[in-house]
């Protein structure tokens, strides 16, 4: 069996899903035997090359996330929504109940600790926030989901290990499977 290619990406999330991936601890070396981790905050962050499996953490909050996700979809044979933010926006999507301008003003203009000189960031080098945060499947086709905030490390390892061995994981077998 030839070595697989694995990519992991961090979009609009708290990095907790990636931290939980690191919580597979020593087993990361087992994963590294079965797959080259070709793109990940763990090793390298270049643009997603073609991969067999892409784990995507976080929801889509901006124009750049949107473009990146379309690119990942093109490059990945199996795209996995990794964690609750990716699956259903979760905490990242809680701002959807408000309009974006209010959300920005609350943080950058009206915060208790702000001085009077504050502005809302609008530099051209900054990403443009979307009015509403979207889960992955509203933008692209998602092949598999791992729920949890974050998903627990054993579940992550199980899902990866099955895919890397060309088997479809059976989430019914995961011990700590739950949202939240």
């Amino acid at each position, binding site marked *: 069996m030839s070595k697989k290619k694995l990519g992991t*990406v*961090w979009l*609009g*999330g*708290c*990095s*907790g*899903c*990636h*931290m*939980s991936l*690191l*919580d597979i*601890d*020593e087993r*990361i*070396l087992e994963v590294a035997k079965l797959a080259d*981790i070709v793109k*990940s*905050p*763990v*090793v*390298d*962050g*270049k*643009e997603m090359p073609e991969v067999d499996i892409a784990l995507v953490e976080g929801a889509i*909050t*901006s124009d*750049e*996330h949107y*473009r990146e996700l379309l*690119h990942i979809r093109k490059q990945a044979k199996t795209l996995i929504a990794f964690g609750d933010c990716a699956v259903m926006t*979760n*905490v990242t999507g*809680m*701002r959807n109940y*408000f309009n974006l301008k209010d*959300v*920005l003003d*609350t*943080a*950058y203009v009206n*915060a*208790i*600790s*702000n*001085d009077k*000189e*504050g*502005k*809302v*960031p*609008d*530099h051209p*080098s*900054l*990403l443009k926030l979307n009015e509403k945060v979207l889960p992955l499947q509203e933008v692209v086709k998602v092949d598999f989901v791992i729920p949890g*905030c*974050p998903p627990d*490390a054993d579940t992550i390892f199980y899902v990866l290990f099955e895919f890397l061995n060309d088997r479809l994981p059976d989430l019914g077998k995961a011990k700590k499977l739950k949202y939240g």
Partner: protein
Amino acid sequence: MDKRKLFISPVTRIEGHANITIELDDNGNVSDALFHVNEFRGFEKFCEGRMYTEMPTITPRICGICPTSHTLASVKACEMIQGIQPTYTANLLRRLMHIGQNLSSHALSFFHLSSPDFLLGYDSDPAKRNILGIAEKFPDIALRGIRLRKFGQELSERITGKKIHIMGIAPGGMAYPLTEENRKALLNWIPEALQTVQLGINIIRKFHEENTAMVQSFANSPTLYLGTVGSGGEHELYDGKLRFIDADGIILQDQVSPQQYLDFIAERSVNWSYLKYPYYKPLGFDKGFYRVGPLARLNVATRMKTPLAQKEFEHFKSIGSGKPVHGAFYYHYTRLIEALSDVEDAERILNDPDVTSLHIQHHGRWNYDEGIGSTEAPRGTLFHHYKTDETGKLVKVNLLIATGQNNPSMNRSVLEVARQYVKGDDIKEGMLNRVESAIRCYDPCLSCSTHAMGSMPMVIEVKDKKGELIKRLERF
């Protein structure tokens, strides 16, 4: 003026977290640097209208690397709203899990993230400059680093039932006691953890000895410092009072209650970053920038609480002859001294006969309409400030995040390193790594972080005044 721009972006610019624009003057010299942080989630707004008691569960989701610190700052704010204190045992357990947080974050920062620079070299193959590259060349060190982080995470799990975004905590205390079985399992880790931290300290001390000039001159401009200390000025992470010192080590403010933070700290938002610029209010925006985190905490502290860490602390103090040490490189060293104190302190607490007591929670209810909680997150002092209506619904939420307070200094460190290493179009890969590591010294957590792990790949674009691309350089 014909300003050319050098644009450094982690390729993850596409993921959108942080990038840097370096502006060149006509002669190709660096004239300015802008450190852009591309991350915004909006907690201050969307928490409005929710019950204050939900905050210890919502706010850890600000950051997956330091969730426990958010939980603690949050639960303390809730306790001020209720007017109650946690029990003695609850405080022990919180200290322990907070140590776990600090230890796993520091292990990640040093072994996963930064050790490749020290062990493989700044100019080594970027594709290998990561923890897996370390695992190939120095398998023992990689494994030890992974396991030190694991110990930190296990402290959370065995106390609260979860490694990330802990659950078992509530105003007044904790939800579950620590079992004897878990206490023993955690104690078993101590000898190995001590060895690993010592190993890290040896690596960093050796690197410092061999690169003294670089270490001392690296991003070393003087700033003020803020950190939490105990009643005798000792190093403190979980619960204490604020101390500000100036660049010469003169104490500006001491034993300030975190609840008075607004008297001393203000923030300004700028148009080029989603991360605000906090400053020491009495000195104003231009002169008042201060740093937080391990370097700041050791610079402000009078002593450490544990013997081995105290010995190492004395060595650290001798570097500055008793004055504050400013070089951003010393963040790495101070992080490991803290890790040492973490492990020693964990052992002390785990041996406290009350740690397994069942008296873990006081019960209270809404009494006051305002609460402020503070704690030392791995990256620095963290404040949560809530105002509620008389039903306990939040009407105002203010969060002052650790990394934010280092933002002005990170921006300045980047500018200094760029001035030292960037000359016109002459852009070398090793130089990029130094710009990047100026940021990495702070271990910025721009989620509260950008690229938590591994090398930060970059795209540099040299642009003319009209924004036309002159030259593009990629480093993967």
